[in-house]
């Protein structure tokens, strides 16, 4: 990352914090302005809506020009690979130019061109190694995965994107899954990635974007270790199946026993780590992994019918949430152990309005079919809004 960009990112972190303080009413407008003057960031940073809009239309432009070039000036796979390479390099240059211009760096366009640069360069590598050189077996695909891991990794480092780091790690672990002892490599490298990333979470010399990337990689490392040690994954050889020469054998009993223990313990350990370190992204990861472990348990042990499990789990989760909120609110200063249920710096009015979106999207009753004469209700689905004609 350019040193100038890193400096702007640091200033931006302070300005964003100050904006949060202002939203929460802890400081007034003039104080926020004074902080802004003290920590200048000349880059124009529109709201997320503008950035998404810009991302979408830059994407349409990039793809439109690419398709036009591909259809008119290119014949055969070599030509396609060349066009992909050309487009990728041009987009890298475009991203760099935007990154240097304060009025363009954070508009959403640089993100779009950076993303498509990575995609086109990866595609160029895939076409070259897989289709043009026609490397034996799956070698071409594996080289492409390696190139993809390197490209997205470099893009992440250069432009400070956690999403690109996810693409990079995804390519890397897919590549490892295709190697002998893939599962062992997943466990070892996943753990290594988690340890190395955890050390950098508060690294002062890194820019805020790079620290975000470290957090994302920590989650990836933990997810990979869990995926490799989950009981269902071990029993079904889910990682080994990525290999072309995979043949099914009975999984070793010791491995299954170890997987049973890790499936049970790892979610609790990650959750406890997150709570102890007061890092919510870790606690959230632990909670998510716990859900996977419960699903795994349900897959093997049918302790009760589905409706009973869902109802009990729903009631427990609701009770837990209500209880947690009350417990925290009744603590001294409405906090306990460094946790609070108060919103701190978020805009509570906006948060309450935003709740309407997932509710309407998932719990809306089904629209009835056109008027059916002589309709007799019965059969079908029930749930969500519940206001359906069918049960």
């Amino acid at each position, binding site marked *: 990352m350019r040193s100038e960009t890193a400096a702007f990112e640091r200033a931006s972190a302070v300005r964003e914090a100050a904006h949060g303080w202002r939203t929460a009413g802890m400081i007034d407008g003039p104080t926020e302005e004074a902080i802004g003057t003290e920590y200048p960031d000349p880059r124009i940073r529109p709201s997320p809506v503008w950035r998404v809009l810009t991302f979408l239309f830059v994407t349409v432009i990039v793809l439109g020009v690419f398709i036009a070039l591909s259809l008119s000036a290119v014949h055969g796979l070599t030509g396609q690979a060349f066009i992909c390479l050309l487009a990728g390099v041009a987009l890298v240059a475009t991203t760099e130019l935007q990154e240097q211009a304060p009025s363009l760096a954070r508009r959403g366009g640089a993100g779009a061109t950076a993303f498509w640069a990575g995609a086109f360069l990866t595609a160029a590598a895939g076409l070259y190694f897989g289709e043009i050189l026609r490397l034996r077996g799956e070698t071409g695909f594996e080289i492409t995965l390696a190139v993809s891991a390197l490209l997205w990794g470099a893009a992440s480092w250069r432009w400070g994107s956690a999403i690109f780091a996810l693409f990079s790690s995804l390519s890397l672990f897919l590549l490892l899954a295709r190697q002998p002892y893939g599962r062992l490599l997943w466990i070892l490298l996943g753990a290594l990635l988690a340890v190395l990333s955890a050390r950098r979470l508060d690294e*002062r010399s890194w820019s805020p974007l790079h620290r975000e990337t470290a957090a994302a990689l920590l989650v990836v490392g933990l997810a990979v270790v869990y995926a490799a040690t989950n009981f269902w994954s071990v029993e079904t050889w889910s990682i080994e199946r990525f290999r072309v020469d995979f043949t099914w054998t009975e999984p070793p009993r010791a491995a299954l026993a170890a997987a049973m223990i890790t499936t049970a313990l790892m979610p609790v350990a990650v959750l406890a780590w997150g709570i102890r370190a007061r890092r919510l992204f870790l606690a959230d990861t632990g909670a998510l992994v716990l859900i996977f472990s419960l699903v795994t348990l349900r897959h093997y042990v049918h302790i009760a019918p589905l409706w009973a499990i869902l109802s009990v789990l729903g009631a427990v989760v609701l009770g837990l949430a209500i209880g947690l909120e009350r417990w925290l609110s009744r603590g001294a200063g409405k906090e306990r152990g460094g946790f609070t249920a108060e*919103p701190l710096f978020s805009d509570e009015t906006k948060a309450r309005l935003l709740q309407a979106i997932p*509710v309407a999207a998932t719990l809306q009753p089904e629209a009835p079919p056109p008027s059916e004469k002589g309709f007799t209700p019965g059969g079908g689905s029930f749930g969500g809004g519940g206001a359906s004609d069918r049960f």
Partner: protein
Amino acid sequence: MQPEVIQAIGTLREKGILPDPPASHLLRIARGDLVSVRLEIRTLLYAGVLLLTTGIGLFVKEHGERIGPGVVAAALGLAAAACFLHVVRHAAPFTWEKSPDPAAAFDYVLLLGLLLVAADLAWIEVRLSVLGENWPWHLLAVALVCLAAAFRWDSAVALGLSLSTFAAWRGVSVNVLKGALGPGRPEETRWNAVVCGLAFVALGMALVRAGKKAHFEEVWINFGLLLLLGGLLSGVFGDRSLWGIWLAALAAVSAVVIWRAYRAGKTLYFAEGVVAAYLGSLRLLFEAFRNVHSGSAFALVVAGSAAGVLALIVGAHRRMKAS
């Protein structure tokens, strides 16, 4: 932990820009010594409601007949009443303004109560066939109950459920991920979407003008625009004979939306108008290139038009920021 912010708080305090308090409190938060789990609690509440209603739904479906329709209806009613009792006990007094923010659980207990009422009504309708052929009218009843709850208890969640249920009554689905407006006849659904959308937008604007629950504006207008623009787009791409008229209507409506959003500085409405107008204009391009067998020319025109829209977006953002 935010190293930059920790350092900045120290510097700002030394320079007298940031007084203490709140500097020491802010420092605690920047160090990660105090964190808010409000989002996590909200997520748990939402997941809990989703799991519980699905579980209850499955139970009623599998065992409702055996247990007896009356018992099921009574049990659902009792559970809903328990939720409303909680809501009534913890609710702030009614006001046309924004109520003080309640505990995070409040909205979700209310939501659970409303969903149970909806399920109860649906169950009664299915078993007793009170409305007969007019059974979809029970959706209107649910929508009105949710609307009343939204106003009384100042809940955007209840309002969202009310509007989506009202749209469902008219055969329209607000879930854009489904890719279709609804399961009914396209022409009828299209008109229903347009009328619902217009009604929602008009009601939202009227309430804002009257100063009654004005903070619900975004829910009304966004749902309304989604249906209105979605209905018009459906006409542009789905009506083979009258697509031109639909396109003209879409262009006019989008222009009004973009202009008013621009004047009011409402970025989300502006974005919705721009995307709808652009998607509609693609139909015009498809028609123009119907007999021109040049994919590359078509792609270039699409890219060129997107570049034009992008210039409009950047220009509009600059002006909105300046004003």
